[in-house]
């Protein structure tokens, strides 16, 4: 356990010191990794902890991005309002969507989450006058926080790092809370949880809302990162990618998905420079991981380097 704390401290310090050593290109890449790490962790709350495989999680990522993007472009540059709205809209939509998705299980859950995300994609693609259609919405500027402009790569990196750290802290409490433990129980045996007296539906509902909230936060960071939002944010490819990040890193842990996100973003960046067939490679990785490392990279690392007593979540 002490070693785990030690490793965490070293990683934290490395992240804090990165701007001093990395070029602005690699700092940008690291920023993107952190954003997708947050996105992947939010999905893991559903997939890894609660056992609900969503193939439409990007719905909330995209909603957060579109909401903040649209407000910034069309209404005002009021940072706090735009960000709060960017979190509120996906959360509210999740309140409605989850009523539908939680009626299904397993493959059917996968299909209905995919279908709902595709509906949003269709709206973003088709409603040109509002969303810019296929062209999306370019020209979204980064905010100024209390007189501190986030336009530069370094301040923006620190901003993302702080949000990431805060969300990681909150999520680490949630997954270790009585509610978080109950989510794991539901993943392991829904039937047993019900006869013990747990309202399984209510727990799954709360997990769905929380997952949407944090995905929305990641979407907001990404729209500021790119200065752009388009239908691609809502595409099934992104949903599949973030699912792969979770599985590759290790579902049912917090840091696994973050690790998976880092690996995928890095691979995408380098491989897409050499080949158009990046998605094919992604597919092959997916097959390899599910066949040979179902517990993900973090699972392998923990087997090799055990960190004292650690209950598998």
């Amino acid at each position, binding site marked *: 356990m002490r070693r785990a704390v030690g490793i965490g401290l070293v990683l934290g310090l490395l992240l804090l010191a990165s701007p001093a050593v990395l070029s602005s290109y690699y700092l940008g890449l690291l920023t993107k990794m952190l954003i997708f790490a947050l996105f992947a962790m939010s999905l893991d709350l559903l997939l890894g902890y609660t056992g609900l495989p969503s193939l439409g999680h990007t719905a909330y990522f995209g909603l957060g991005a579109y909401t903040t993007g649209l407000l910034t472009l069309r209404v005002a540059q009021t940072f706090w309002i735009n960000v709060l709205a960017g979190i509120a809209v996906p959360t509210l939509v999740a309140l409605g969507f989850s009523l539908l998705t939680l009626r299904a299980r397993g493959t059917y859950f996968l299909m209905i989450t995919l279908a709902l995300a595709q509906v949003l994609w269709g709206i973003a693609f088709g409603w040109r006058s509002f969303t810019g259609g296929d062209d999306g919405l370019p020209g979204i500027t980064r905010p100024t926080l209390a007189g501190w402009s986030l336009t530069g790569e370094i301040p923006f990196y620190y901003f993302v790092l702080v949000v990431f750290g805060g969300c990681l802290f909150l999520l680490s*409490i949630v997954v270790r809370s009585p*509610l978080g*433990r109950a989510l794991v129980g539901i993943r*392991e045996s829904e039937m047993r949880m019900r*006869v*013990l007296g747990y309202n399984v539906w209510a727990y799954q509902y709360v997990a769905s809302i929380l997952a949407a909230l944090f995905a929305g936060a990641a979407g907001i960071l990404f729209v500021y990162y790119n200065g752009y939002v388009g239908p691609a944010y809502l595409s099934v490819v992104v949903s599949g990618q973030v699912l792969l990040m979770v599985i590759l890193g290790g579902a049912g842990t917090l840091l696994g998905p973050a690790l998976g996100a880092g690996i995928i973003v890095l691979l995408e960046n380098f491989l897409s420079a050499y080949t158009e067939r990046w998605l094919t490679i992604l597919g092959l990785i997916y097959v390899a991981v599910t066949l040979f490392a179902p517990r993900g990279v973090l699972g392998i690392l923990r087997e090799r380097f055990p960190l004292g007593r650690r209950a598998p979540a």
Partner: protein
Amino acid sequence: MTGGGAGIRVEGLVKDFGGLRALEDVTLRVEPGERRAIIGPNGAGKTTLFNIITGIFPPTAGRILFDGRDITDLPPHRRAQLGLGRTFQITTLFPKLSVRDNVLLAVQAADPARFTLHRRVEAYPHLFRQAEELLERWGLRDRAAAPVRFLSHGEQRQVEILLALAIRPKVLLLDEPAAGLSPAETATLADLIRGLPRETTILLIEHDMDVAFTLTDRISVLHYGRVVAEGPPDAVRRDPHVAAIYLGTATPKA
């Protein structure tokens, strides 16, 4: 340990699965603190009866009264909160979690803290204390850290009952607790069940006649979805119709 006993009554219970009638007008009246065995051949409807009493699925007709209260329309978790605990014939645990975490989840189920999400579970030391007590009493302290899937079948059957007990049930439904156990393990388990607080009402499905006859006050015999005999163990043992069912010469009543 328990919240006292409660009576359980089922009245005119009917269950159809498509064209198959699994239960046909089943009426049972189990008094608070009573120990009742439900016996009958495979397919008689015993587990179906348990599933309806615990709310896993609704009956086609009839009603269920728990402690005098009609619970027919309550979902399973509400029935559990009232004090209805059960075990499964097919072991239903949290396989990847440690024995301790299995018990903790069960203890937490009956605690107001179960919905908390802003504090770590370590902030509730009384949950851990209760779990340790249960582990101690059931002799599973040594196995507490082991993932439950690595336990022997006998130990898993023990945890199965332990989880049901952790919610302090007033009525405990045991679905073939001795399924798949060796004679020695069955004897140990029977002692454990015998040692449960006397005020806890127990309904027990059991194929092992010795277990069923020595552990319970009354026996109901289910055959093709009907209660065909009911009474104290000795009377049921002597009932010629029951003997015929178990020897395979009885046919369903028209």
